[in-house]
Each structure stands twice: as C-alpha cells, then as structure tokens.
C-alpha cells in the first residue's frame, strides 16, 4: 500500500498550513471519489442507484468547488483511507491531491478521513504534510491516535488529529483540539409504531431522538474545546433525507453548543450535481443554519441552568440507561447541568439544585462525605438504581436538612423516572416552564453577569408547533425571539402568577432562541 501513497507524499513537499485555527473551523464532510464508493459497497448504507454512484465517484472534480462559494464551511473532510488497502487507493490519492490543492487556494482547511484498519498508520503517514490533519474514524485506540499525531507533527508541527469514533471511543486527551463523536443520530420523533418497537406504551408521550445530551456530556469536560457531532446513517430516518432533516440536525446539536458535521445524503448530492434550483436553495439555507450558530458564539456565556446537577461518570458503564435518562430529562424540559464525577461537587452545585447520581454505585468515602455534606446543607439528592443495587454495602446517607430519593431498580423506566424528577424539582428551582412542547426540546441557560437568560427550542416533529406558552417565575422586561430564517421578534409580556411573567411563542419552525431580560432587582433564585 505504501507505494500508492508514496507518489503523493513526494509531491506534497509544501507543508499544509491551515487557514484558520481548529477552534474556528466549521466542518463539512465532503466525501467522494472511488474510495468512497468502495466504502459504501457492502455497508449498511449502500448507494442505491448507478447515477448516484457516478456522482459520488466523480465528486472531486473542480466543478463541485462552486458549491462551497458563500457557505460558512472552512474545513473540509475528504475521503482518504479505509484503513486497509483497496484497489481504489491510487486513483483516490491522485484525485484528492489535486482537489486538496484547489481547496487550499480558496483558503480552506483540509482534513483527511482515515478509518481504523490494519493500514491506518501508512495512510496517516501519507497524509502528513498534505493535509492540515486527519480525522480518525472508527475504533481507534487512544495510543494509536497519539501515534498518529506524532507522525503528522514530525512533518507539520501544526497538524491536528481529530479522533471521531463512536461513543465508546471518544477520546478526550488534551492533545486533540476537537472533541468529536461519530454516534450522532438523525434527530426527530419516532412514530408511535416505531416507539412501540422501542418499548413505549400505547398512550405514552412521543419519543424524541436528540443528540443534545451527547453534546452536553462532552462539554462537561470543561476544556472549552469545540464539540463536533458526526454521524452514520441510522435506521430510524426515512430516505431520502429532506431539508428539514438536515436543518433539525444542525439545530439539535447547535442548540446544545456543538457543531453538526454536515454531510450530503445521496439524494441531495445528486440533485446538487444536476444543478437543480430547489436543491441549490436548500444547500444555501442549510449554510444559513450552520452560520446562525457559528455567529452566536457569545451565547456560550449562558450557562446551563442547574435545576438538576447530573453527576456523570463516563467510565462507570451503564451508559445506555444514564444517557437515556439524560435524553428524557431534556424531553421533559428539566434544566440540568452535567458534571463529571471527578469534578463533583466543587463549585458546581448552586443553592436549590438537586443532585442526581444515576449511573454509578457508591464510591470512595470522600465522595460519600461530599454527598452527606450536600444533603446536610439542605440539598435534594436523587440516587439511581445502581446505588440501590449496592444493597447493604451502600454507605448510609442521612438526609439531614435535605432530602434523599432512592430509585429502586424496578423504577428504571427512563420516562417515568424523568417525569418524577421533573415533578420533584419543578417548584424548587426557579426555572421557566414551557407548555405545548411535546415534540420540542428546550434548553434553558442563564448568564449571571448580565442577568439575562437564553431559552432555546428545537422542533423534532415534522410540523412546526404553534401556540407555545412559557411561564417564568421572575418578572420579565423583554423577550426577543431569534429564529434562523426570520427577523428577531419582540414578544408581548404577560403578567403571571406570583410576580412571574408569561410569554406566548406563536411558532417554532425548527429552532428558535429567545433572549430574556429580567426586571431589575428581581434576583434569580438558585444562582
């Protein structure tokens, strides 16, 4: 395989130099070429038509560069290696090398996608000097990612490695400038029949699929690194993907503070290749969606409102249950802040917050002491089933001035559990309460320095929800809706109960963010 890459590495004598810093990159998965066709053969997402196959195979022709004009994307991920030798490698290398040069002329950063396999190291070596870095996809072990970085840096000291594995292979090492994840799913709502297949009851609430919780867990890292959410095709999304699917995916992750790595579905790609006006308009609008979130980095000053502080341990196992709970807390609009176990509770728990320990069993005495201290000071502690399963060996916790709710293993149904948590904390922590949001996830954030709040909503249904009411426990001065494709809209403020306020949001298309300004001198409880 080395010979296939040798030509390229010799040609690539001029070191790659990124046009911008990694934290400024707006990624676009721009896969194509014969190797991409080879990758799709036999995958769970085969190419459906010969026409689409032809479009993908010829994607690295100069003509496709026109699609990048006036878009927000400044970092392209190109298909480079499947991690194993294929007959398409040589042709792919030639195509990508030429195309990479054209991208660089336009000031774009270029990354090579390398999948895990027996020949990954050779592929990374060949990429050194040619690209700004590599995206390692699949089950790369941590040492391999570090080794890949060393290879690249031996040629280009600015080169980066972005490990983008599935959830089990997320790599949080400080050497990697982006926290990336390939476990994203197409957000949306399961139909009743699909939900039933997943175990939902006949008259239960609809199931919302979202990546927001994954972003939340990664951001809990606290390093302030960008979070990229990649994806593979998922069963529960009809093909072909429609514009709303792309837009929702961008909004779902963007709302949570991450970046959805846009990638073309075969249908949209083919229609773009044909130059169809509708497809081009969708492509433009999708860029506007991405740009919207990119231009609102200042919103990161708003911190998640901690009605519930969820203490999470990535190494504890049992991710499915705890992640399901995180998702359902969002579905039930319970404002929550995720804190990694190693950081708990230093400066993380404000007055009035409840603490949820769901996915790990009793830990060291020092940790138990912290929990005792918390409840002794009046805190509400919610202990998940694994704590209960510890039985007699679980350390004794005394509520003191606070309260403790222990959830037995038979109460692990995430839907009921999350509703119960919502009911427990609803009146104790001054969070807003949105109504008519069954197909919406909302995230509530607050900036104490400006005493302003940000309420974000993403619609997961196929139709926009109308007539949403939000009740705030505080008096509001103004509420301004920012939507992606509309002008800012000032909402009328209604007087609510007990000195609070209400607003009515006429419609949430796929996303809106509402900036709330409070009346002065009406301090936010709990912060």
């Amino acid at each position: 395989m080395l010979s296939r890459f040798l030509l390229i590495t010799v040609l690539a004598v001029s070191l790659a130099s990124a046009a911008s810093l990694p934290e400024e990159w707006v990624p676009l998965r721009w896969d194509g070429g014969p190797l991409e066709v080879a990758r799709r053969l036999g995958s769970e997402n085969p190419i459906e038509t010969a026409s689409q196959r032809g479009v993908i195979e010829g994607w690295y022709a100069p003509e496709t560069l026109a699609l990048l004009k006036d878009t927000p994307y400044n970092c392209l991920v190109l298909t480079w290696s499947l991690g194993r030798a294929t007959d398409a490698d040589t042709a792919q290398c030639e195509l990508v090398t030429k195309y990479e040069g054209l991208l660089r002329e336009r000031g774009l950063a270029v990354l090579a996608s390398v999948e895990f396999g027996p020949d990954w190291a050779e592929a990374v070596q060949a990429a050194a000097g040619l690209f700004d870095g590599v995206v390692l996809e699949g089950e790369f072990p941590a040492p391999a990612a570090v080794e890949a970085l060393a290879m690249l840096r031996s040629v280009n000291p600015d080169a980066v490695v972005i490990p983008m594995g599935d959830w089990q292979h997320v790599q949080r090492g400080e050497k990697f400038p982006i926290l990336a994840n390939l476990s994203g799913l197409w957000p949306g709502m399961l139909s009743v029949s699909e939900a039933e297949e997943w175990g939902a009851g006949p008259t239960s609430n609809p199931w919302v699929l979202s990546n927001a919780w994954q972003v939340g867990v990664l951001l809990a890292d606290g390093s302030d690194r960008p979070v990229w959410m990649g994806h593979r095709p998922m069963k529960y999304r009809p093909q072909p993907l429609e514009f709303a699917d792309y837009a929702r995916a961008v909004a779902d992750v963007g709302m949570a503070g991450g970046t959805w790595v846009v990638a073309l579905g075969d249908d949209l790609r083919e229609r773009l290749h044909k130059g169809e006006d509708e497809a081009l308009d969708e492509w433009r609008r999708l860029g506007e969606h991405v740009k919207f979130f990119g231009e609102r980095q200042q919103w990161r000053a708003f911190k998640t409102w901690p009605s519930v502080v969820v203490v999470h341990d990535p190494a504890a196992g049992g991710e499915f249950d705890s992640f399901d709970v995180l998702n359902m807390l969002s579905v039930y609009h319970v404002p929550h802040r995720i804190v990694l176990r190693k950081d708990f509770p230093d400066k993380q728990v404000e007055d009035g917050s409840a603490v949820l320990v769901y996915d790990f069993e009793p830990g060291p005495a020092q940790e138990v002491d912290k929990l005792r201290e918390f409840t002794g000071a009046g805190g509400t502690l919610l202990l998940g089933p694994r704590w209960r399963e510890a039985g007699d060996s679980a350390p004794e916790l005394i509520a003191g001035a606070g309260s403790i709710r222990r959830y037995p293993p038979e109460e692990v149904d995430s839907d009921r559990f999350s509703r119960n948590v919502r009911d427990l904390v609803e009146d104790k922590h001054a969070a807003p309460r949105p109504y008519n949001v069954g197909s919406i996830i909302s995230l509530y954030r607050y900036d104490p320095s400006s005493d302003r709040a940000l309420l974000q909503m993403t619609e997961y249904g196929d139709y926009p929800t109308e007539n949403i009411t939000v009740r705030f426990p505080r008096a509001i001065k103004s509420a301004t809706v920012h939507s992606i494709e509309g002008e800012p809209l000032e909402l009328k403020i209604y007087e609510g109960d007990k000195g609070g306020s209400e607003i009515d949001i006429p419609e949430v298309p796929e996303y809106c963010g509402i900036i709330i300004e409070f009346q002065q001198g009406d301090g936010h409880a709990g912060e």
Partner: protein
Amino acid sequence: MDMRANNFGKRYPCGSGKWTRRNWLWTAGGAVAGSSLGSGRARAAAPASPVAMARCRSYRSAELSEHMTTLFDQLGGIGNLVSGKTVTIKLNLTGSPGLRFEGKALGETHYCHPNLVGVACRLLSEAGATRVRLVESAWATGGPLEDYMLDGGWSVRSLKNAGKRIEFENTNALGSGTRYSELKVAGGGLIFPSFRLNQVYEDTDVFMTIAKLKNHATCGVTLSLKNSFGITPTSIYGGDAGVDEPNESPTKGRGPLHAGNRQPAKIAAPENDPSTPRHDGYRVPRIVADLAVARPIDLQIIDGVETMIGAEGPWVRDGNLRTGKPGLLIAGLNPVCTDAVGTAVMGYDPRAERGTIPFRNCDNTLLLAEGHGVGTADLSRIDVRGLSIEEARFPFEPAPAAGRAGAASG
C-alpha cells in the same frame, strides 16, 4: 401489568381477542338481567329528545358562534337550562397532549377544539350561566387542567376571558375539592353500583359534554356517552390508584376499568360482580352506560368539524387512521339520542348488535344506556333538526380497529 398474571385474566385473557362461549353467555345474561339490551320494551320506554345538526366547515370562532347559536335555538334555547346556573362542561382531551397525529393540532384530530369550547363558554354566559367549569380528567396527571391545556396548545388566557366566570378542574384527582362525591347508579348498575368522582360532578346544576365525532377501538364509536368514561378519577380507578385511599398523584390511565384486573380504591364501591368477563368490550360499554345514569348529561355537543377517523387517538395501531373533515356540529339534550344521530352520521346503525360494525367485538353502549332508560337510540323516534342525517352523512369505514376491543385503551 400483564393481565394474564391475575386470576381474572387467567380465565378471560384480556388482549387475546378471544371470545369464548362462556363470554357470550355472560353478555347475553348481562343483557337480559341488567339492561334489556336493545329490547323492544326499552326501546319504546326510553325518552326521546330532539337533536340538531349544522354544517360548519371551519373552527373560526365567528362561524362556530353562528352555528352554535342556531343549534341551541333549534333545541328550544338554552336560557331556561342554564340561566343563573353553574354549568360544568366535560371536554374531550384524551391521551397525552404531546402525542399528535401527523403533527397536527390536537383539536383537528382527537381533542375537541379550543375555539369551540371558547364559543360555548361565551354563549352559555350570554344565556345567563353564572359560572362555567371546564373539566377533564387529564391523562396521567393530577396537575392543574390549565397546565394540561397549555400543553395542548390551548390559550388558557383566551378561555378565561370567554365568559363571565370560567373555572378549570382536573377531575383525575381531588383537585380543588375537599372530598369525593358518591354518585349512585339508579337500579344498581351493570358493573358498578356507584362511582366516586371529583366533587364538581355533583356540585353543578347543569352537566354538559363537548365530545368529538370519532371511532373508538374499544367501543366502536366515542361520542357524548363515551366522553363520560373520563369523569372517573384515576386516583381511584387508575392503574396506580391507591388500594385504600386515592392516589392524589396518578400517573397512569384507566387500564383497570378496561381490564378489570383490580378493584378501585376502597373509598369507592367495588364492582357488583367481579366474576363477570374481564374483557374491555364487555366492560367499558357497561361502565359508560352506568356513568350516564350516575351523572346524567344534560346538554351534548359533538365536534365533528374536523376529526380523526379509525380510532380515538393516534396510539391505536393498525386502524387505518386518517383525518377527515365531516364539517359538522351536533347538539342535543339526551346523550343516547345525540349519539344515535352521531353514529348514524358516521355511517353506522346505532342499533347494531355486537359483532356488527362498528361494534366488532364489543357491546353497543347506546343500547346499554337505552336499556338503563337514559334515552332512545331509535332514530325513528328522534326529531332531527337542521341538517338531516342523509345530508350530514360522512362514512367512517373502513375503520378496522373500531370496536375490535381486546386491548387496553384510553
């Protein structure tokens, strides 16, 4: 809960759809002994009242108001009925407000429409009602009804301003009351001799219902009679009801009333005979008929402007579910008469027997209520005013899930 795990379920496995000879005997026996199901004597003796129908193509308040006014006039006016009185309106807000059919607004599918409720409140107030209470046993919660309505996209603020004194009560639990009322079923009842209900159902002068024109998986059709199934509090009759005392924080539906897998909380009277079939197609129509006696429905409105066809909500599977626009409003003063007309409009025979569409695997609630003497389901005795049945006809078939019963449902 797996109903087959209990004693009743072992004998009559609810959910299997099986109907044994013994079940049939029970049905016949119940009919003969308890209700004279569809008998000539009941048919002749049950009272008849006029029913009015109007064509209404949209939920615009002005149009609704015009047609509702006409309907009330055609019934002889409502002033005598409501002037100086408290009117309690049972709404139809079935199932979680988060569960939409094809993403549509709930009022366009399986809930009654909020604009119709608002217009009704205004007309009642204008007719002299001193207080209008909007009530429903909200699905799986004992929380405020206003919150539940807001979750359904309703403007509570608008409803509060629709009449002189508009109040709200979630009757799934005690709510704003101080005690549960016991309302007895005259004659002893087919399933229950009495019901423990939220106090508002007793402390009212006029009880009104705003139902939806729909199929129902358990009962074939759900109109004004079936809407009263939801007056039973799940704090007492629900899946997580208390054993002795009510559970004031209910989180489940009315599975036990369907399946008969447990008795209500002891604050309420138990069933007359717990050895009767544990089949929802047997039980639910009878409970509904009993409720029509315990809490008579003085005034009925059926919202048939837009609706869901095939079942009562989007959770019913394999029901050929779809939306439709019958463009109808129906009003009446006797729930059996009103429902007989509504059933006929849907393309069904309101006197159809069990095993006949839409009562595929259930008893005919209308005939059971007729047997109780509530009203007649005999169309020949009902004075239909305004639109005729022929003019209003909007066939709901094919609706394969309607009346198939055999599964827990709302």
